[in-house]
C-alpha cells in the first residue's frame, strides 16, 4: 500500500508538473492539458504500432509534435489574447475539447489502443509485487523533476523563465522577450505532459475520457499545492496520491476520484491560496 501510494503520488506529480510550469511562467492556465496528454499517448501509439518505428524514436517524435503544437497554440492564438483571462481560459478549453472530441468521433476507444510497457515483468518490494513499468515511472519522474530544477535554476533560459514568472515588465527591460519565453513555457509544459503520457499510459489503455480526468487531477494538485510552486505540487501530489490509494483500499474504488474534490474544497475553505502558494497571493485570491 505504501509503495502503491508512492507510485500514485509520483504519477500525479508528473501529470501536474507541466500544468504548473506553464501556469507559473506565462500565467496561461492551459485547459488543453488533458487533451495534450491523450494526444501524446496516441501519437506514440501511432508511430509505434501503425508506422512500426522503434519505441525511442516514436516517443521523441510524439513529444516533439505535441511540444510544437503547444508552441503554435501560443504563437497563433494566445498571443492575441494576452491579459484577457476569460478569453485565454475559454480558448484553451475549447482547443482541448476540439482535440479530445475529434479523437472520440474518430472512434478511438478499446483495447487495441494501448502502449506496451518498456520492460515487462514485476519485482517485489517490501512484500508487494510492482510492475517494472511503475518503477520506471518513479525513476523517470524523479529524474525529470531533478532536471527541471537544475534547468530552471542553473541555465540562462531557465533563469529567464523565472524572471518572466516574477515580473514580465522587468524581464523586458533586461532584454528577455516575455512572449518568446511564454511560448517556450507552453512548449515545455506540453512536452512534459506528453512525456508523462508516454510513461504512464502503458499501465492502461488510451481512452479519450482520460483527458478530462488528467485535467481534473492536475487542476486539483495545482490548486491544493498552490499554483506555480514546484515543491507545493510535489507535496500536494503526495497528499492526493495517498488519499486516493487509501480510499480505494478501505472505502470504495469508485470513490477514489471524489477524494481530490473533497480535499480541494476543504483546503480552499481553510487556506484559499493553497498549501504552499505565497507568490502574488493577494492579486489572485481574496
Amino acid at each position, binding site marked *: 500500500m505504501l509503495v502503491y501510494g508512492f507510485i500514485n503520488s509520483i504519477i500525479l506529480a508528473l501529470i501536474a508538473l507541466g500544468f504548473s510550469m506553464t501556469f507559473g511562467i506565462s500565467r496561461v492556465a492551459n485547459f488543453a492539458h488533458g487533451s495534450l496528454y491523450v494526444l501524446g499517448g496516441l501519437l506514440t501509439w501511432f508511430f509505434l504500432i501503425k508506422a512500426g518505428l522503434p519505441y525511442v524514436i516514436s516517443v521523441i517524435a510524439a513529444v516533439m509534435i505535441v511540444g510544437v503544437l503547444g508552441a503554435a497554440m501560443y504563437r497563433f492564438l494566445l498571443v492575441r489574447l494576452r491579459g484577457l*483571462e476569460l*478569453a485565454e481560459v475559454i480558448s484553451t478549453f475549447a482547443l482541448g475539447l476540439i482535440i479530445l*472530441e475529434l479523437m472520440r468521433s474518430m472512434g478511438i476507444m478499446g483495447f487495441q489502443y494501448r502502449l506496451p510497457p518498456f520492460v515487462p515483468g514485476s519485482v517485489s518490494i517490501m512484500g508487494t509485487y510492482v510492475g517494472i513499468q511503475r518503477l520506471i515511472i518513479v525513476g523517470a519522474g524523479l529524474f525529470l523533476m531533478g532536471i527541471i530544477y537544475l534547468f530552471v535554476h542553473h541555465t540562462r533560459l531557465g533563469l529567464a523563465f523565472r524572471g518572466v514568472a516574477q515580473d514580465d515588465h522587468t524581464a523586458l527591460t533586461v532584454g528577455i522577450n516575455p512572449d518568446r519565453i511564454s511560448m517556450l513555457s507552453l512548449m515545455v509544459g506540453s512536452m512534459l505532459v506528453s512525456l508523462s503520457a508516454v510513461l504512464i499510459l502503458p499501465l492502461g489503455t488510451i481512452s479519450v475520457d482520460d483527458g478530462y480526468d488528467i485535467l481534473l487531477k492536475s*487542476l486539483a494538485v495545482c490548486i491544493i499545492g498552490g499554483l506555480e510552486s514546484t515543491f507545493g505540487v510535489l507535496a500536494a501530489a503526495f497528499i492526493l496520491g495517498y488519499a486516493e490509494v487509501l480510499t480505494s483500499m478501505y472505502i470504495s474504488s469508485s470513490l477514489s*476520484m471524489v477524494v481530490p474534490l473533497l480535499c480541494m474544497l476543504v483546503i*480552499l475553505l481553510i487556506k484559499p491560496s493553497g498549501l504552499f502558494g505565497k507568490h502574488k497571493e493577494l492579486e489572485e485570491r481574496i
Partner: protein
Amino acid sequence: MKEKRRRERIDRPIKAVTDDIYCISSFREIVYLMLPRALPILLLLLAVFFVPLYWKKVLVITFIMAIMAISWDFLASCGLISLGQALFFAVGAYISGGLNHYLGLPIYVTVPMATLMGGAISAILILPALRLRGMYFSMVTLIIPLMLMRIIEATKIMGGTEGMSGLSSLPGLPFSIAVSVLALFAALFGLRRLLSSDNGMIFLALKDNDRAVEASGLNTLWLKVKAIYIGSALCAFCGAFMTHYYMSVGLSAFALDLSIFPIASCVLGGVGTLAGPLLGAVILGPLSEALRSLGTFRIVIYSALLVIFIAGLPEGIFPFLKRKYEQTERWV
C-alpha cells in the same frame, strides 16, 4: 513617411438625435429606437407560431439554452466565469426529478421549488470557490460538476447511472413553448433591469475591481453569493423544465454540452450584453439540432466556432451589429 490609413467611426446623425429626450418628435426616430428592441421579440413570437411541429420542439430547447446562456452572461458580468454551468442545470433537474419521483409532487410545485432550492444548493456548493478570483474560480467550477457526477455514479443515489424516468410531463407543447418564451423574456429583461439598477452597478463592479468594492465597505463574498444565486436559479429552472419536458433525469444533466453551449453562444453573440447570448443561442440551437446526426462531433464544431470567434471577432456578433447600426465608418 507613408501615413497609415485608419478607420474613423462617427455616430450616425439619427443616433445623436435619438440620444436625448426629443427623440419622440419624429416617427422616423421612434422607429429607429424601437426597431432593434421590438424586432427580435416579434421574430421570436412569429417563429413560435409559424414553424413546423418538429422545429417547435427544437425551439423550446433553444429557448431554454438561451436562458442558460443569459445566466452565464450575467455571472460573467459579475466576474464569475463558470466553466461548469451544467452543475446548476443538473441541480435543478435532480431536485425536481427527486421531488416528483419520491414525493409525487405535481409539476406546479416541483419546478418553482427546484428553481428556488436549486439556486440555494448551487450557491452552497460553489461557496468555497467564491473566495477565488478569475481563472482560479473557473478551474474549480470545471471540477465540481464532474466530481458530483462521479459521486452519483458511485453511490447510486438518485437513481445512479440510469437516473429517474417516468416523471410527470408538461401539459402539451403549446404550454411548454409559452412557459419557455415567457421565462426567456423574463430572464432577459429582468437581468437587464437588474444590471442597470444601483445593485447591478455593484455587481458589474465586482468584475472590474472587486477590491475597490470591498474597500467601499461592501461584503464581496455575500454579493457574489447573491449573484450565483440569481444565475444558478435561472439554470435550475432550465434543468427542472427540461426534466419534465423529457420526463426523465439522468447523468446526462451533467453533460459537457450543457457547459459549453452557454459559453459558445455568449462568445458568439457578445459577452456582457445579455441580448448577445440570446442571439448566439438562437443561431447555435437550430444549428446543433441540424448537426444532431454527428453526435459528439457537435462539440468539436462548437469549440471551433468558439476559437474562431474569440480570435477573430472577440466582441461578438451583437456589439458588431450594434456598431453598424449606430455608427458610420470611413477610411481617413
